[in-house]
């Protein structure tokens, strides 16, 4: 390493040593959400305000149920990746790792609860 200059050690790595995979995953999920979110807003918006029986009947139909499950799944995956960058920007050290772990548990935990609930209503 003594023969390497700082420049030689840095070329090709960028500041974070990695990141294109994370960026590409954000892009893929954002394109999915670009289609899912408008469908979800107008299906969920229609269901909200209904009685218990109306809500169950509405989410027993394939289209609203699949849209809601996909939006929750992809949405929380996208959120988790986004909030990870937020934490990495402002928090450092042990607390950074703890917060990333907590938000990962929360994201996938909430996604699992949502998909489970919709499956139970729909099936």
């Amino acid at each position: 390493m003594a023969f390497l200059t700082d420049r030689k050690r840095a070329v090709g790595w960028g500041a974070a040593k990695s990141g294109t995979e994370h960026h590409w995953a954000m892009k893929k999920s954002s394109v999915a959400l670009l289609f899912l979110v408008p469908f979800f807003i107008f299906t969920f918006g229609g269901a909200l305000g209904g009685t218990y029986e109306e809500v169950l009947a509405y989410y027993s139909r394939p289209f609203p149920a699949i849209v809601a499950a996909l939006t929750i799944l992809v949405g929380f995956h996208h959120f988790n990746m986004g909030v990870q960058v937020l934490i990495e920007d402002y928090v450092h050290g042990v607390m950074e790792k703890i917060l990333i772990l907590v938000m990962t548990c929360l994201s996938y935990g909430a996604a699992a609860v949502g998909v489970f609930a919709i499956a139970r209503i729909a099936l």
Partner: protein
Amino acid sequence: MADVNRGNRPLSPHLQVYRPQLTSISSILTRITGNALLLAALMIVWWFLAAATSPEYFATADAVVRSWFGDLVMLGSVWAIWYHLLAGVRHMIWDEAKMLEIDAAEMLGWGVIIGSVLLTLFTIIVV
């Protein structure tokens, strides 16, 4: 010779001397809206869980989601999600190295702000 001038290089713009611009404000709002949507997302998941559990539990969750507090969160989140969605489209345009000139970037910024308000009004009328 390559290792000289360590720690004596210009820093990125400091907040205290940084003049806010449309592009920076609209960028920060993208992050704030995206992360703030967590609250509405958790409320909606809870609402689904309650609907899947029992009529009594649904009545409780539905009352919270449709209370004045719930309405406030949902209204704010409708704007936030439209804003974040349009800002995402703006990033896709930028990723193709298009509309990066200051004029074009500021036009996109206004497009995101005005577009998100119009889509929010449209959502309130339709839903």
